[in-house]
């Protein structure tokens, strides 16, 4: 695997609502296809269920108590310690490192530069349509445009006639073509914006999820035994215009059932829209002939509550808020090499593709995103950063998460055996 490229794909607020994680409703054929050629971690968790702290944590390989970032308002290099990042480490080891879309959380938490130039060889790319994400672009029942939570759009009618994730895929494809020509080792990070709110996606994806097929969360009430401190009052949801109009009481709500179904419907539609972008990106990897020497990692910064426990959004320690999809495609290891002319990742249209069973290497081992740093280093054949001493504020290069490559050959049966052993 020495010298393999890395394609690092991170989604925003994506819980494992995917076919490859056993969700029979959600249509995600392209991510499922990636899973079928990957080792898939069934129990992967973020360190804090909010964007900036989670991303800084997994990109530095340090827990929030070491990055000292729990909100959005500090830059770890000056606030905690001058810690290396995953892309910085690859850059220092001869890779061309590139950032497309939302990889670091933008703003002061990444020094208003996505940590460029420490982490990246080129200035990070941000789609121009990003600035309209929170604008009034959602057509309401009154025919006017609103800043809604539920926001299916006609892409031809929105400002610039495109959406940020579409632009990010196009830029990533452009960069892959350049890397192919330059024959340089690369680490390309692509951060997709969806399914983060607003649930803004091409309206045709609604057809995949007829409202009559959408159920409520199985446990939509706030549990009686839940301590008040553990509850998140989903303020970002309340601030959207369509939710404001519902006059939902603070802090416990609830949201009316018919609107709960609409939120869930649009979340799933946004996941399928994300899936198409991932599919086009992976298809581009095939197009440039790099599927045989590029490691692909797919994950999310954290999960998202879809009405479970009377909660929405993230901001908690619940499983639905912290659990994430996590899979690694390693050519020749998790999947055999492609033969000449064979496509590893042909694009699958969710509107026409009939899903089949996903045969993937799965493991139930409990793992954390803080392990991404050491895991990717090991997979790429780089020297694996040492385990951090305690404390490690003065140590630039170390990791608080061990490599999880040791679990790549762990089968579900072995996991079950281990679990039985532990329980005993």
């Amino acid at each position, binding site marked *: 695997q020495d010298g393999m490229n890395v394609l690092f794909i991170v989604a925003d607020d994506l819980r494992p609502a995917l076919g490859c994680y056993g969700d029979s409703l959600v249509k995600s054929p392209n991510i499922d296809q990636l899973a079928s050629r990957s080792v898939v971690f069934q129990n992967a*968790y973020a360190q804090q*269920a*909010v964007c900036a702290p989670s991303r800084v944590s997994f990109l530095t390989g340090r827990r929030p108590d070491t990055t000292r970032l729990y909100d959005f308002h500090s830059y770890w290099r000056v606030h905690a310690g001058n810690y290396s990042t995953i892309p910085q480490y690859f850059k220092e080891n001869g890779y061309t490192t590139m950032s497309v879309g939302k990889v670091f959380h933008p703003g002061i938490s990444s020094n208003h530069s996505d940590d460029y130039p420490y982490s990246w060889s080129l200035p990070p790319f941000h789609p121009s349509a990003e600035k309209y994400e929170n604008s009034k672009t959602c057509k309401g029942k009154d025919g006017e445009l609103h800043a809604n939570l539920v926001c299916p759009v006609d892409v031809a009618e929105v400002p610039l006639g495109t959406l940020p994730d579409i632009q990010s895929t196009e830029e990533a494809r452009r960069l892959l073509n350049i890397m192919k020509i330059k024959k340089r080792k690369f680490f390309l990070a692509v951060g997709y914006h969806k399914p983060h709110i607003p649930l803004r996606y091409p309206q045709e994806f609604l057809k995949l999820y007829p409202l009559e097929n959408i159920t409520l969360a199985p446990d939509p009430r706030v549990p009686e035994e839940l301590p008040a401190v*553990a509850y998140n009052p989903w303020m970002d949801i309340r601030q959207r215009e369509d939710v404001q109009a519902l006059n939902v009481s603070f802090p416990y709500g609830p949201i009316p059932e018919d609107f709960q179904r609409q939120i869930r419907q649009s979340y799933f539609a946004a996941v399928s829209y994300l899936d198409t972008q991932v599919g086009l990106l992976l298809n581009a990897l095939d197009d440039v002939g790099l599927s045989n020497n590029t490691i692909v990692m797919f994950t999310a910064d954290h999960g998202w509550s879809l009405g479970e426990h009377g909660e929405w959004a993230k901001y908690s320690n619940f*499983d639905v808020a912290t659990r994430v999809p996590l899979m690694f495609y390693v050519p020749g290891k998790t999947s055999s090499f492609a033969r000449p002319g064979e496509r590893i990742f042909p694009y699958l249209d969710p509107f026409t593709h009939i899903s089949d069973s996903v045969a993937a290497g799965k493991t139930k*081992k*409990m793992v954390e995103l803080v392990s991404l740093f050491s895991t990717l280093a090991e997979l790429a054949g780089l020297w694996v950063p040492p385990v951090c001493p305690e404390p490690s504020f003065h140590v630039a290069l170390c990791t608080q998460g061990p490599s999880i490559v040791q679990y790549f050959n762990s089968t579900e049966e072995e996991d079950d055996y281990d679990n039985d052993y532990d329980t005993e």
Partner: protein
Amino acid sequence: DDHEEPIAFSQYPRPADIPEWDSDKPELKDIKIMGYSMRTVDYRYTLWVGFNPSNFSANLQDVHAGELYMVGSDPSEDHNIYNSTLHGNLVKKFL
């Protein structure tokens, strides 16, 4: 130990014991409580403890609340049994 059970940790800050307008995203200066979670394939255990944002320290003696969910019987985490005497010994062991 080949059979050591992997654990995943997460944490979440809060400004107060009851939900407030900034409970979702408290600024560092307003963080008063930190919820530390450890989870295995069998359970999720969370302790909400006092937190001092000026020195980033948690006070494990200052317990505001706790959560304990058993994955096998309660995979959706709907039944917090932290206060249940049945599991009192387990909680003490964690503490």
